[in-house]
């Protein structure tokens, strides 16, 4: 979009057309005070704090909802404006507790900052106290309406992402933000994603366990990524004295993807849970007994060395690129076995992952969702569900193609409820008829496709008019989705685990035994399992080695248990579902004697007389170049995995070892 020149406080600023004055001022380093504005969302002018003087206008304008115009002259600090702002803060303070000395949000509270700036120690108005009850009935989010400044940020984030359980009840100063019928959160349909607490500018909505756990200035904050599901969301982790104190959404401010779910925000308790493995263990007389690393590494080297090509290796795809590459090399070069596979093969082939493109949800104006059923409530790709709903709220167009019941269809611009492959064929045909170019093979393949239904015709129109198209599909449908994207846009197969794409590049398909074989009946002489692989019973193997952060069901069955580092304790990289490389620094030290998987594998290799190197970031980047997709057959691969079950079982230790267990029990109670 064309840039517009405006003058704010005498400074010339160039901002894209359509930018509001708060964002434009920010580009020039000028902060316009506000309590209710949220970058990326439409300003609603609730707090009236962002009033500015615009030359030629009779009255002050709210900066959050005024767009830049060529030649506009804005003054944010006239005496009249400053007086108005001071008056507003004074009014807000008259109903706000003045207990900054013990308030958890001290230091990051916008109201505190503005009161300081305007030198208001005590409101000039009569103090009002409503004495609203506090909602502290859950272990995640505490709501204290007495601190609320009625800015509506929480209401808007909740609505925009489609969760929609919070709203203003009542009217005027007596209004209160709460759920329908004023129920506690757990009875309101809340998913405890905590977006509201990230949005709250004061101490009204806050982590339930924050009291005296430190204030912002006590923390060290580190950016990382969540490993718990296919979305691999950005997170900001705050630590104090070497322990994780809280996790916040860490996406780019104003991005539709700035969301994390309850798993990512509250699952970190599991780092210190009772089931955490902190020392190696080996089976002695039927029971697991603690042992030393030296002993454990020796046993592993001996067993795997003797098993050789009859050894097997199983892992989740929630491991880092470094772990994946080292595991692959360890299996194929050190132990010399081709029997290795990951949970990726439960829902995708490696090709679909490797050929997927890179995408940007904020930039795409038309998003096609084929065969995917993201859900905040089931926590299956919850961040994708939230991001798509936000994108639609901000003017994006969403086309949902699904033969079954997908709840996201309620947010769709066009919903095509029919067989995905034949719908995509009809869609491509409709686009060809509109004059879009397609590969000859594709044109031939769709020549016999059914005529476009009204919905498909509408979708074709959207695509034809779009600037940037993003086709997101289930891995089973990637080939058809890819053919559609070859005409316009990019196709991405969305996996269920955080580093499925990285794992696919490491390459675990080696012609040996696959996941299903190793997990059940194919006999291996030794089986090395990494992470929380969802295998219920002990697989048929002579010797079972489990490297895991927690005493999982499978670890209990193992002959040798190696305690590994959990997320936030490992350093590495992942390739997220949109093809972005993300770094995970080590944020806290591993508990007890736990080691990260790379260290474990290198130690065993070294015991076997082979030196292994940790891959460098440039080696990883070189290994992970997306392929150039070409026309693919219009097929559909078949997988039988239940998505919610898979996500819950690879995260069993996280859920059972944290307050998320309360959530699972409560949700079970509600649905029963």
């Amino acid at each position, binding site marked *: 979009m064309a840039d517009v020149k405006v003058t704010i406080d005498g400074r010339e600023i160039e901002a894209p057309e359509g930018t509001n004055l708060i964002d434009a001022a920010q580009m020039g380093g000028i902060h316009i005070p506000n309590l209710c504005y949220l970058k990326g969302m439409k300003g609603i002018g609730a707090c009236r704090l962002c009033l500015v003087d615009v030359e030629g206008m009779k009255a002050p304008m709210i900066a959050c909802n005024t767009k830049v115009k060529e030649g506009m002259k804005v003054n944010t600090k006239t005496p009249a404006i400053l007086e108005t702002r001071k008056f507003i803060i004074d009014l807000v303070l008259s109903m706000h507790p003045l207990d900054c000395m013990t308030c958890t949000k001290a230091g990051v509270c916008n109201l505190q900052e503005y009161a300081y700036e305007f030198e208001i120690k005590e409101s000039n108005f009569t103090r009002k106290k409503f004495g609203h009850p506090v909602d502290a009935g859950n272990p995640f989010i505490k709501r204290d309406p007495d601190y609320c400044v009625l800015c509506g940020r929480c209401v808007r984030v909740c609505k925009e992402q489609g969760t*929609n359980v*919070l*709203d*203003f*009840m*009542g*009217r005027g100063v007596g209004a209160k933000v709460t759920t*329908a*019928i004023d129920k506690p959160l757990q009875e*309101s349909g809340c998913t405890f994603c905590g977006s509201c607490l990230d949005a709250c500018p004061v101490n009204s909505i806050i982590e339930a366990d924050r009291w005296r756990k430190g204030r912002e200035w006590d923390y060290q904050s580190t950016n990382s990524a969540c490993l718990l599901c296919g979305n691999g969301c950005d997170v900001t982790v705050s630590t104090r004295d070497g322990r994780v104190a809280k996790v916040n959404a860490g996406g780019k401010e104003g991005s539709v993807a700035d969301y994390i779910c309850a798993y990512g925000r509250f699952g970190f308790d599991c780092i210190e849970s009772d089931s955490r493995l902190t020392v190696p263990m080996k089976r002695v007389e039927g029971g697991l007994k603690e042992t030393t690393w030296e002993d454990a590494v020796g046993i592993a080297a001996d067993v795997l060395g003797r098993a050789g090509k009859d050894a097997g290796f199983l892992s989740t795809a929630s491991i880092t690129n470094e772990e994946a590459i080292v595991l692959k090399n360890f299996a194929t070069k050190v132990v010399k076995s081709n029997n290795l596979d990951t949970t990726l093969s439960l829902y995708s082939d490696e090709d679909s992952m490797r050929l997927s493109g890179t995408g940007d949800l904020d930039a795409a104006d038309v998003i096609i969702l084929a065969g995917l059923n993201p859900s905040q409530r089931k926590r299956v790709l919850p961040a994708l569900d939230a991001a798509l709903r936000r994108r639609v709220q901000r003017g994006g167009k969403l086309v949902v193609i699904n033969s079954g019941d997908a709840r996201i269809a309620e947010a769709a611009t066009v919903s095509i409820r029919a067989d995905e492959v034949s719908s995509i064929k009809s869609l491509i045909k409709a686009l060809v008829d509109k004059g879009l170019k397609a590969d000859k093979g594709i044109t031939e393949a769709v020549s016999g496709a059914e005529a476009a239904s009204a919905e498909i015709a509408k979708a074709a129109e959207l695509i034809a008019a779009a600037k940037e198209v993003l086709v997101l599909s289930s891995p089973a449908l990637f080939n058809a989705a890819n053919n559609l994207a070859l005409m316009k846009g990019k196709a991405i197969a969305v996996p269920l685990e955080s580093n499925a794409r990285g794992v696919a590049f490491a390459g675990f398909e080696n012609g040996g035994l696959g996941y299903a074989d190793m997990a059940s009946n194919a006999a291996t002489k030794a089986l090395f399992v990494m992470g929380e692989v969802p295998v219920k019973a002990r697989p048929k193997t002579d010797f079972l080695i489990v490297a895991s952060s927690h005493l999982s069901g499978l670890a209990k069955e193992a002959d040798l248990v190696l305690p590994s580092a959990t997320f936030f304790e490992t350093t590495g990289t992942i390739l997220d579902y949109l093809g972005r490389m993300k770094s995970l620094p080590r944020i806290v030290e591993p508990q007890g004697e736990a080691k990260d998987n790379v260290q474990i594998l290198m130690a065993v290799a070294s015991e076997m007389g082979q030196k292994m190197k940790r891959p460098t970031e440039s080696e990883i980047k070189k290994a992970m170049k997306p392929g150039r997709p070409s026309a693919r057959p219009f097929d559909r691969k078949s997988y039988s995995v239940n998505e919610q079950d898979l996500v819950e079982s690879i995260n069993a230790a996280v859920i059972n070892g944290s307050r998320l267990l309360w959530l699972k029990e409560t949700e079970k109670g509600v649905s029963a």
Partner: protein
Amino acid sequence: MLSEEERKEIEAEAGQYDRKEAGSVEALKVVQRHRGWVSDEAIRDISAALDMTPDELDAVATFYSFIFRREVGRNLILVCDSVACYVMGYQGVLDSIKEKLGIDLGGTTEDRRFTLLPISCLGQCDKAPAIMINEDIYGNLGPEMLDSILSRYK
């Protein structure tokens, strides 16, 4: 559960707009007309009928003072407390009603015959002090007139 009649009336109201939720105030009034008030259960039922979430509808319901989210009596007494009525004897009228019915503002008599509520202005300043019972206006009031007025409502 919405009655057949309520459902029909709500659909007729909501059907007038592009988006069903635009009929939310009317839908609330439909249920209130039939039941006297809007219960929690009714909020859930109406919101489902309008494709809204319950929190959105409850926000609308609680915004309006005359959508009752608590059960009220069969007859509603609204006592005007704006300036004109206030200076013309509002207090005496109010005290007298309170004493006769044994309830405070916001209260409902045990036999559910009356609910007593304040109102900002009835537009009867020339006949102050004034009250309204159900749809009937009474002006130029004195405490001595209340017995006969109240006796008309069962």
